[in-house]
C-alpha cells in the first residue's frame, strides 16, 4: 500500500501487509510488484536493493530477480543459470486511481474506486487506526477509509495498520483542490497526527 507517485520507476520501498514485510518496487517500464522483503541467499532486505530494467537486485551480493521473483543472475557465478528453486515469494499488487494495493491472500474484491480524487501524501502515525478514527470523529468505512473534511477540503484517508500499533494514512483530496489548498490539507494532517499522538501520550 502506497501512493503510485511515491514509487516511480526504479524505486523500491518497504511496506507491510497483514504484518508481513514486503518490498514493493516499480520496473523501468512501469510494472509494479510486491515481494517478501528478504533475499533467499543471505536474508538481506530486498527493499535496500536496486532496479535495473525489469529486475530487482539485492544490494548485498547483487543477485537479480525477474518480474516473477525468479533468480536470473548470480554475479559471483556470471555463467551459471540459477536453479528455478531460487525464487522470492510474491504477493498480488494492483494499481488503481493512483494507489498501489497489495493483498497477501487472493483478494475477494477489487480495490474501491476513488475517482475525482488526487493522491496527496502518505504519513505514518504512531497510533492504531481506531485512535485516528476517534480523533477524526467518524468510523472507518467499508473501503477502509476515513472521509473527513480537512482545511475545508473533502479528503479520503486510506487506513493501513502496520505493526507496532502504528498506522499509515494514504491521503487523497478532491482533484480540483489547488496546490495551496492541498498544502493546507497537508498541514491539517500534521495537526491531526499531533493531536492523536499527544492524546496517546497523555493516556
Amino acid at each position, binding site marked *: 500500500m502506497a501512493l503510485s507517485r511515491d514509487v516511480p520507476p526504479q524505486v523500491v520501498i518497504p511496506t507491510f501487509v497483514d504484518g508481513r*514485510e514486503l518490498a514493493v518496487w516499480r520496473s523501468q517500464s512501469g510494472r509494479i510488484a510486491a515481494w517478501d*522483503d*528478504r533475499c*533467499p*541467499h*543471505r*536474508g*538481506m*532486505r530486498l527493499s*535496500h536493493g536496486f532496479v535495473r530494467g525489469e529486475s530487482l537486485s539485492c*544490494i*548485498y*551480493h*547483487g543477485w537479480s530477480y525477474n518480474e516473477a521473483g525468479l533468480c536470473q543472475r*548470480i*554475479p*559471483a*557465478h*556470471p555463467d*551459471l543459470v540459477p536453479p528455478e*528453486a*531460487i525464487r522470492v515469494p510474491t504477493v498480488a499488487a494492483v494499481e488503481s486511481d493512483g494507489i498501489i494495493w497489495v493483498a497477501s491472500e487472493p483478494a475477494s474484491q477489487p480495490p474501491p474506486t476513488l475517482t475525482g480524487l488526487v493522491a496527496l501524501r502518505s504519513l505514518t502515525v504512531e497510533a492504531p487506526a481506531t485512535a485516528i478514527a476517534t480523533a477524526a470523529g467518524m468510523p472507518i468505512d467499508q473501503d477502509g477509509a476515513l472521509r473527513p473534511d480537512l482545511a475545508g477540503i473533502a479528503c479520503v484517508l486510506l487506513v493501513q495498520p502496520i505493526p507496532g500499533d502504528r498506522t499509515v494514512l494514504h491521503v487523497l483530496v478532491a482533484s480540483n483542490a489547488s496546490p495551496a489548498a492541498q498544502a493546507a490539507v497537508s498541514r491539517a494532517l500534521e495537526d491531526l497526527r499531533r493531536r492523536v499522538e499527544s492524546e496517546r501520550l497523555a493516556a
Partner: protein
Amino acid sequence: MTDTPMLNEWYPVGILTQLTKAGRDTLLMGEAINVACDSLGAPVVSAEDGRTLPVRARYGHVWTSLGSPTKELFDIPEADQPGRRLVDVGVVRVKCSPLRAVENFLDIAHFPFVHTDILGAEPHTEVQRYEVQIREEVDEVWATKVKFYQPQAAKSAAGGITTDYMYRVPAPTVSILYKTCPPRPGEWDVITLFVQPMAEDLCQVWPWMALFDDQTPMTDLIHFQQMIFLQDRSILENQLPRLLPLDPGMEIPTRADMTSVAYRRWLKRHGFTYGAQLVAA
C-alpha cells in the same frame, strides 16, 4: 538460553591502550561486566556479581571469558613479526548477531556491491573456486587460494589488482584474513575482526590489523578500515532472520559461500549457537 560451549571462549572487550581505573561498563553475552585496569595498567575484568574474570592482554585488546576456558587464546604468529604496524581500529557496535558479523567478514562476493570501487567493482564479480577445510589438528576453519579483483585493495594500493586471500576462523566470534600486501610482495597483511557478543542480536566489533606499510599515516589506516566496516554495518543490521540460521533450508548458498557453509557446520558441530537459530523459523 545460555550456551555452555561459547561461555568458555575468549572474547575481546576493550582496547589495551584505552583502559581506565574507573573502567567501562559493557555487556558480554547478556551479562554486565566492567573492563578496567589496575594501578600498574594491567587489565581487570569483573562481573556484576563481583567475580573477577580471567583476562588476556593480546593483539591490542583485552580478552575475557565468562566461563572456564579450556583452550589458551588462539595464536596469531604474525603479531610478533618485526616490521609490522599494529593498528587498533576502534570499536563499532552493530545490531546484529555476532555470528552474522563474522560470516560477512568471510565473504568476498559482496565486495562489488557494498564496497564499490574499493574492494570490488562490476563487472569483476566472479568468485573463482577456492579451497575450504576444517583443520582438525588446530580445530579451525580455513579458506585458501581465494582470489578477487580489487580496484583499491588497501590504503597503500595505487590501482586495481587481483588480490589473494586466506581466511581463518580460530574461535566462534573471531575471523582473521590474510591478503596480498601491495608494498611487500610475498608477505601477507593481517586484518582481523574480533567480535564481542553483547546479546544474541547485538555485538561490538573490534577490528585490528598487522600490516606492512611504512608510508601511510596511522589515522589513514584506521579510517580506511572503518570506512570498509561501516559500509557493511547497514547490511548486517538488515538481514532476516536476525540470528544466523545453522540448518540448511532457510538460506541458499552457492559455491562462492563455501567458507560460510563450513563456518556454519563448524559452529553447529561445537554447539556454538549463541546468536544462531537451529530450526527454520
